[in-house]
């Protein structure tokens, strides 16, 4: 059904005639699918209309908005993300970590990175500090206005992308150890706060109202750093090179070990 995503060009050239026939067949198939999916789309539109009609009342809106004063933050979306449904947000940080670990497991970042123009490099010196400042502002403002950990983390990640585009292959990220520690910071702090509250008798991820504001800020700060580092590291696209001085005996990670195809 799905084609091999990475076909080499060589065998594609070899059988041009067959390819042309296949292309024709693909066109027919894609047209057929288009008709089919149009019908499905129309049906789904009807269903959506039904769903809108079936709903009585404001769904969760009034309940969620009404309880915001007890969540420790004023921005309702932050209240949902970090209080009502904090468990989702914790797991979402885990998803980001899974992606990053998956990227790292494929080995070091590929070589062949090309530098961009001089103009960009000059821009970096003032854009990056600005982005970092903006991230801090975004994090703080998220308590009562649009913003929060994810937007702030994204700005940090964007700073990393710009640094890499300007010629630093490591996107301004620290060495391997620091990178590993920072990228799990969000999950670690979040889960530990949750478990500590369970231990203290409040219940898992159940903040006491008097502390809620500060606990949420703590979690959000950790999450911002983790998201920023994870996004920038994902953009780098490979395991970080180990700084040779700071480690004892891991010449392995830096030396481009080829995957050995264990057991295969």
């Amino acid at each position, binding site marked *: 059904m799905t084609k091999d995503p990475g076909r080499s060009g060589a065998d594609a050239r070899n059988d041009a005639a067959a390819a042309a026939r296949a292309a024709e067949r693909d066109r027919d198939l894609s047209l057929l699918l288009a008709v089919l999916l149009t019908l499905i789309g129309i049906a789904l539109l009807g269903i959506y209309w*039904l769903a809108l009609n*079936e*709903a009585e009342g404001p769904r*969760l809106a009034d309940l969620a908005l009404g309880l915001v004063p007890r969540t420790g933050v004023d921005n309702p979306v932050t209240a949902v993300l970090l209080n009502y449904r904090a468990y989702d947000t914790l797991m979402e940080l885990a998803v980001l970590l*899974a*992606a990053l670990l*998956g990227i790292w497991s*494929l080995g070091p970042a590929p070589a062949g990175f090309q530098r961009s123009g001089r103009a960009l490099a000059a821009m970096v010196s003032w854009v990056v500090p600005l982005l970092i400042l903006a991230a801090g502002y975004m994090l703080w403002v998220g308590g009562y206005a649009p913003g929060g950990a994810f937007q702030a983390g994204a700005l940090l990640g964007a700073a990393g992308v710009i640094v890499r585009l300007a010629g630093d292959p490591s996107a301004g990220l620290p060495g391997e150890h620091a990178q590993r520690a920072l990228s799990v910071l969000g999950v670690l702090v979040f889960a530990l706060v949750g478990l500590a509250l369970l231990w203290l008798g409040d219940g898992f991820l159940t903040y006491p*109202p008097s502390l809620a504001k500060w606990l949420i800020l703590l979690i959000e700060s950790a999450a911002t750093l983790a998201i920023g580092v994870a996004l920038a590291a994902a953009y780098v696209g490979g395991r970080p090179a180990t700084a040779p001085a700071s480690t004892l005996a891991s010449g392995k990670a830096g030396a481009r070990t080829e995957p050995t195809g264990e057991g*295969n």
Partner: protein
Amino acid sequence: MTPESAFDSAALDNLLAAPLVLAIMLPLLGSALTTALPRLAPLLGTLIAVGTAGAAIWTTVAVWTRGPIHLVLGGWDPSLAIALRADGMAAALVLMANLVGLAISVYALGYFRAPDRAQSFWPLWLLLWAALNGLFLAGDLFNLYVMLELLGLAAAALGALTGSRDAITANLRYLLVGLVASLTYLFGVALLYTAYGTLDIGLLSSAIAADEPSPLDAAALTLMVAGLAMKSALFPLHFWLPPAHASAPAPVSAALSALVVKAAFYLILRLWLDLFEPILDLSASMLLGLLGAGAVLWGSWQALRAERLKLLAAYSTVAQIGYLFLFFPLLAATPPGPSRDNLLAALLLMALTHGFAKAGFFMAAGLVQTNAGHDRIDDLGGTAQRLPATTFAIALAGSALIGLPPSGSFIGKWLLMQGAIETGQWWWVVVGTLGTLLSAAYIFRVLSRAFGLEPTPIKFVTDARAEVPALMLSLVSVAVLGLASGPLWTLLGLNASGGGA
């Protein structure tokens, strides 16, 4: 916030909830720790694995002694917050998944000898484990989406760990299919939220039951089940499974085939029983049964034709998942009562047996592969002499896959056939029999190669750390589950399904 009078009950709730929370949080924390301290990964990972399995056993014991557990996180209104829940069915699957997980962890200690392999494996494996426990214990539809994505990403990353072209290609496809599947599921969730204004499974269940059946419910069900069917590799959406499972490292294949696919199936079952029971008619269940029958026949046939041991095991998973879907039309045709409970227990018994047996089979196959340098079935001669314990594990797991007595799947299949005859759906008996014959053929094909005419072995166990877990799992699938399946019925009596919150 908690009123003084309610404090005691809240404290008790906390204690009851602790094992559920720990079963999810321990592996998550473990993943963070093994990422941050890669050199200690095998040690930390093993400790966390033991702890997680302990939390899972604790969960099962808690459900066993006190009945279903329902925990609303955060102390908010149940419709607003996320709930965790464990009833008999969830507890049984959690127990199986975590015992298998522990065995896989021990096996992995011996399998991933190269440090950077181990450093990649442990954090991802613990994330996968957290996602599995999270899925079995979730009580919220959107939380299930996040868990599904976590499961999908971690599974694809683990599957590609060998770094070979085949593995990356197969797991990229697996990743993409999984993403389409979870978005399809999410669309169904969005429709349900639009109509009913909550994401909690218990509340939704009552809301759906209170309303007239509408096309909206049917559409949401279709979208969600279609997405999950893709993830559980239901025929004909199974195309991604054999290459992905066959190309992964052996401990990962074991986890993917025994646990990950089963989690998606479990969700279909839960949605079917908990949410959509009131709106279902026989035809929908019949369709699932037919697809299951296709899976049984096609999967077994392909397993018989497979040239490599791991590919055989992967196709056998397609077939075994098919068996589980055969139960849907029978459940739909059986009114609530003891015979329906029997069917449910049989279904669960087959799922659990397959979990243990397939994990044991893959782990043994991995040992054969590392020992012989290949896993071509035709060239397996002498394996019984070189790896007697491993061959024994394959034979045991194989007999559980066929459904020979006294394995758990023997009882499961027996009750399946009985149910088919009782409800007048005799054609499933034909499918079941054909599937059993085919599975006997593919298992004996492997064993006849492995037991070549060569001198008798000197030592039964050659590599304890790797062979014992495989052997244990196979033994559980054959002996423990078959001979001592009684407790399962008790545990299932503790179901909260349909009860609502």
